[in-house]
């Protein structure tokens, strides 16, 4: 953990060092397709740049590499003299990125989305920062509505607010005018002007030459996988209808230390739990599935003492396993909708906290499922409890569920990135958890009074050892799952 964290070299660049964006010999291949080749640029702090080119020429890819969301195949991107591959939290806070996707959580309100990102970025006074942005971007009326129900234009304003919330010194925007009406476009242009006037660097991709000439002072045109044109633009003569009201000057919010591992993990878990509280789709699907399995099996299983020694404990753990697969798969699929995971990657939160936060939220949700189905299992499928060991049973359920959640959380990121989507999750998880399942079934049997109870502690130790092993592996590996 510490070793991993230490690889994230803090941007040694002090805040006084200009945030010059330097791209050197950059190239990118996707599979067998080369998208960019030998791109070199220097963009100084305070520049206002339009990045143009035909479809598929690599504008978005270049911008994503500048935001640190994509690894270059060759060459490098540095900000303030620090290579983005070694970027620490401080460097990440210098960049704000508006992508094609909103990176917002559709089930959270605009305010909740912004508060969550403010927490991850270490914004000192989120309420004031959100109020200032609300005034700048005219967010009144949309802050308290779920992001998922907002119109394209309103969502775009909220997306911009998310990107500006932490006062970045470089603002990267990918087609920010797409879907905006004329008034919203004028307002956005005015906001970008205000950003540049306050010394920020603005780089935006656009297809619209009129937009490119309305504000930017430099035009970079990509063609044939590299920079074809790089020239200054004349001072805009834009006399078009000004924004409805002149936006106030952009002010930088005060920042505190970004959250460390556990605080960031808790913020992510709390966000997931809030989403679940609103939608109840994980509890609904996972809990109902587990209940349905138990109720169906109760008609075919022997009851009483025979059950604890027989197949009933296997049925219990199969229902828990599939509940975890459904629940954790859903949680990660929700994170991938609108690329919420990229919002986490842009933040200064340690990568390990993403895994820990997601696993923690899933564990809480699965604990709720356990609390519902375990008593039901005991009532429907076991005897009067004579000879059973409730502490061993609780320990078994806790350790077994924990192990399942850890493995499923690690592989859920892989599953949603595969062609099969969430359906891939059982294929990946089940072979890994078979030893855990065998141990949990055996231990449940022992905890219910069947078999040699003296080996309970030995089995608990084996389950705990398995959990520890997969936890360490998952913490170390998850960053490779989520980083492009």
């Amino acid at each position, binding site marked *: 953990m510490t070793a991993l964290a230490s690889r*994230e070299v803090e941007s040694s660049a002090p805040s006084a060092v200009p945030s010059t964006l330097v791209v050197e010999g950059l190239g990118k291949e996707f599979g067998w397709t080369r998208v960019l080749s030998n791109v070199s640029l220097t963009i100084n702090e305070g520049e206002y740049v339009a990045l143009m080119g035909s479809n598929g020429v690599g504008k978005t890819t270049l911008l994503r590499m500048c935001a*640190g*969301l994509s*690894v270059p*195949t060759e060459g490098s991107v540095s900000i303030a003299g620090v290579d983005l591959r070694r970027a620490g939290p401080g460097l990440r806070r210098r960049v704000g990125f508006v992508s094609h996707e909103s990176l917002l959580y559709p089930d959270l309100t605009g305010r909740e989305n912004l508060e969550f990102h403010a927490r991850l970025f270490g914004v000192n006074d989120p309420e004031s920062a959100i109020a200032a942005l609300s005034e700048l971007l005219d967010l009144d009326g949309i802050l308290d509505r779920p992001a998922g129900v907002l119109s394209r234009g309103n969502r775009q304003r909220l997306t911009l607010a998310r990107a500006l919330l932490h006062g970045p010194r470089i603002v990267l925007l990918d087609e920010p005018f797409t879907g905006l009406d004329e008034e919203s476009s004028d307002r956005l242009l005015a906001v970008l002007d205000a950003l540049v006037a306050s010394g920020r660097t603005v780089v935006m991709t656009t297809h619209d030459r009129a937009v490119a000439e309305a504000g930017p002072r430099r035009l970079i045109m990509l063609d044939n996988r590299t920079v074809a044109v790089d020239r200054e633009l004349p001072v805009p003569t834009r006399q078009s209808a000004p924004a409805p009201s002149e936006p106030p000057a952009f002010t930088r919010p005060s920042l505190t230390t970004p959250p460390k591992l556990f605080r960031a993990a808790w913020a992510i878990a709390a966000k997931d739990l809030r989403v679940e509280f609103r939608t109840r789709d994980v509890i609904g699907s996972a809990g109902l599935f587990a209940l349905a399995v138990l109720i169906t099996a109760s008609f075919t299983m022997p009851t009483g003492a025979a059950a604890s020694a027989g197949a009933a404990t296997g049925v219990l753990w199969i229902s828990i396993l599939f509940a975890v697969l459904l629940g954790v798969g859903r949680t990660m699929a929700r994170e991938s909708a609108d690329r919420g995971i990229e919002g986490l990657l842009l933040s200064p939160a340690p990568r390990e906290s993403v895994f820990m936060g997601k696993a923690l939220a899933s564990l809480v949700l699965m604990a709720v499922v356990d609390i519902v189905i375990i008593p039901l299992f005991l009532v429907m499928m076991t005897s009067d409890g004579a000879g059973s060991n409730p502490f061993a049973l609780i320990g078994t359920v806790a350790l077994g569920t924990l192990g399942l959640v850890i493995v499923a959380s690690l592989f859920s990121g892989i599953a949603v990135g595969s062609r099969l989507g969430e359906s891939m999750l059982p294929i990946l998880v089940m072979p890994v958890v078979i*030893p855990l399942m065998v141990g949990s079934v055996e231990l449940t049997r022992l905890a219910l009074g069947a078999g040699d109870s003296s080996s309970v502690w030995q089995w608990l130790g084996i389950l705990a050892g398995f959990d520890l092993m997969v936890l360490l*592996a998952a913490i170390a590996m998850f960053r490779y799952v989520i980083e492009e």
Partner: protein
Amino acid sequence: MTQQAAPETVVEPSDSEKSKRTTKWLGIAVAVSIVVFIYASFFYAPEDSVQGVVQRIFYVHVASAWIAALAFFVVFLGSIGYLAKRNLRWDAYAGASAEVGLLFTTVVLVTGMMWGKAIWGVYWTWEPRLTSVLVLWLLYLAYVALRAYVPDPSRKARFSAVLGIVAFLDVPIVYLSVKWWRTLHPEQVIVTEQGPQLPASMIVALMVGLVAMTLVYVYFVRLRFNVNDLEQQIKREVAK
């Protein structure tokens, strides 16, 4: 975002006349070694006084198990190599080794079941050693399946590497399971505190088997790697 990995490089076609000659000679060596191995295990090694002729399955069973472990260790190394260097060549070796390792694990399971039927009277029993080898087989089946369902080569390599590392953690569990659990599986007879518990001629047959299976492993991985190169060349041409 933190991107500590080195830039990706692309696997370049490596097959050449020299490489083809090497592959050809390797194929001949494999054929010769298999013939020698058959002779050693069926004629040179003595018949076991207790188990009879069925014991001769031991040579291919144990040699395949060792090679499967080697193959999955190569997957593990290739996975670490890819994540550290982001060079698709590491992933190509890992992918090829996983497929061949899966084949050898299948041989282990099938020969084990044949032996089990003759000695225990059943093809399969859910005892820990058998179960954990089956788990191993399922793990690398999932690894191969995953590679089929992720079209983008870089993403495929990244995801496979994560699974390749986690799956390898199961290999020591398989190895130690004989000691961890009470098991019907025979105790180890080669690596013991008292030294090998087999007659010298049986050990010679086993060693010949190990050499033959190692050559088969290298040959298959090499062929799979060459096929991978050709696939990449074709896809590059199509992508142009």
